């Protein structure tokens, strides 16, 4: 299973990422997920979210999750980009791409990855009010 992990303050360019999609003769399904900063957090209108990360541990925890996925499902490739720093409303904070032969495992792995990330990967948000 190929994996690619990027934690960076740079704007996520989904178009550029899609152009580098690495499919094979066996590929039947590509699931992508984009997490986008919403204009409202709880009750308050916000203009952006500041994401803070414990980088060394983020990388380690993502690798543990990737390895769990590779044991559970036949996945060809995972690419994950998490942006950190200040991310404005309507901008992408998280981008995930899962490539597999069949859609069921691609969807299962993608959801597992995001759920586990939300449980364990040390990234925190601070909303910036309008």
């Amino acid at each position, binding site marked *: 299973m190929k994996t690619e992990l990027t934690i960076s303050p740079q704007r996520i360019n989904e178009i550029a990422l899609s152009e580098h999609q690495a499919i094979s003769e066996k590929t039947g399904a590509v699931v992508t997920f984009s*997490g986008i900063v919403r204009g409202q957090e709880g009750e308050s209108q916000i203009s952006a979210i500041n*994401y*803070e*990360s*414990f980088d*060394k*541990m*983020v990388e*380690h*925890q993502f690798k543990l999750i990737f390895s769990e996925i590779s044991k559970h499902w036949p996945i060809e490739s995972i690419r994950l980009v*998490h942006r950190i720093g200040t991310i404005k409303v309507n901008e992408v*904070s*998280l981008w995930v791409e899962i490539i597999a032969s069949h859609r069921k495992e691609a969807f299962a792995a993608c959801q597992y990855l*995001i759920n586990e*990330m*939300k*449980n*364990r*990967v*040390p*990234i*925190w*948000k601070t909303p910036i009010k309008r």
Partner: protein
Amino acid sequence: MKITVRFWSYFVDLTGCKQTCIEVDQGITLGQLHEQVCEQFPKLTAAKNSTLKVVDVDYQNSNFVLSDSNEVSFFPPVQGG
């Protein structure tokens, strides 16, 4: 032995520092260190039950026995995505 303790997210605001260095007894557990840290930084006490405890880059439970080279992190629930 001396253990470096790092705080993350709003725990930095509660303690007023990103990291500190604590003198502890040999054989101290992660749970005992957490107690000691909460005594030193009483504002952490309210969040005690939801605090995530990490040794180096792995989550550990309270029984984990610390050694000299370990670096400990305490932080609130994570919120990636």
